[in-house]
């Protein structure tokens, strides 16, 4: 599989991602993955505009899996942008094999019981279970802001924060 990086970030494509991460991982295709976003005509139109010239697709979980498996996908260096940890887990369960997984932004959602584990990542008990499931599949989860940061282990951080 040619998925060089999976990023979990509810803001999907934004400056930090396009200016630093895409280059650092050497991606030539960004695939935004989330079933709701994939059928939102505004997001499908606007997200590629933020991509600063990098080829961008906005796909459902099923279509992301199909594309990454395809000969075309296999020939690319793909960075998958999963909107929520549950999208990330669904992709892994579907057979996606990213070389690394980093947690970027997760905004707190009003009305949920969350803890800010970093100043940009909110986690609920449900999220923690999803992250554990991801780690249980043998994937190390980092939470670097910049590609050059030293990587901490996200599961360890969750444990420290009482999850």
């Amino acid at each position: 599989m040619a998925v060089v990086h999976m990023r979990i970030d509810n803001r999907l494509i934004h400056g930090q991602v396009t200016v630093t991460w895409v280059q650092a991982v050497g991606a030539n295709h960004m695939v935004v993955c989330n079933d709701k976003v994939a059928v939102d005509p505004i997001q499908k139109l606007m997200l590629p505009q933020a991509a600063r010239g990098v080829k961008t697709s906005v796909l459902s979980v099923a279509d992301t899996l199909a594309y990454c498996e395809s000969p075309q996908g296999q020939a690319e260096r793909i960075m998958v942008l999963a909107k929520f940890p549950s999208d990330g887990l669904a992709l892994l369960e579907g057979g996606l094999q990213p070389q690394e997984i980093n947690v970027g932004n997760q905004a707190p959602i009003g009305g949920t019981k969350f803890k800010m584990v970093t100043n940009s990542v909110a986690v609920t008990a449900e999220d923690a279970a999803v992250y554990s499931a991801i780690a249980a599949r043998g994937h190390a989860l980092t939470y670097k802001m910049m590609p050059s940061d030293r990587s901490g282990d996200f599961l360890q951080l969750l444990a420290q924060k009482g999850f």
Partner: protein
Amino acid sequence: MVGIVITSHGTLAEGLRAAAQMILGQQEAVQTVGLGPAEDLDEFLTKLRQAAAEVNRGSGVLVLADLFGGSPCNTAAYLVQEGMEVVTGANLPMLLEALSQREERNPKELAEAVIAAAREGTRRLADVL
């Protein structure tokens, strides 16, 4: 008078408003909506809608967003679907034009006028001097 909403990453919107008020004095029917570092975009859209409702004096609203393709712009795009005028690339010349011309123009005319002002305000000084 067309109501004005300025929306940006962080505090740029508020900074633009403060700078414009230094030049033009206190302004009414202007709201700023800045995107925080860990902000949910559905809640941000709600804030944008609320701000637009608050500044609407009956003649409509013009939204100025900082960056084309950025989250504030992409969120404001839903308002365009609902018929609202949104212009990106918000800068001080644009805001000053919006505040100076909003009595005379409707939102669409104002949008066109502020784009011209934003562009004319961007010059190489060595070419002028």
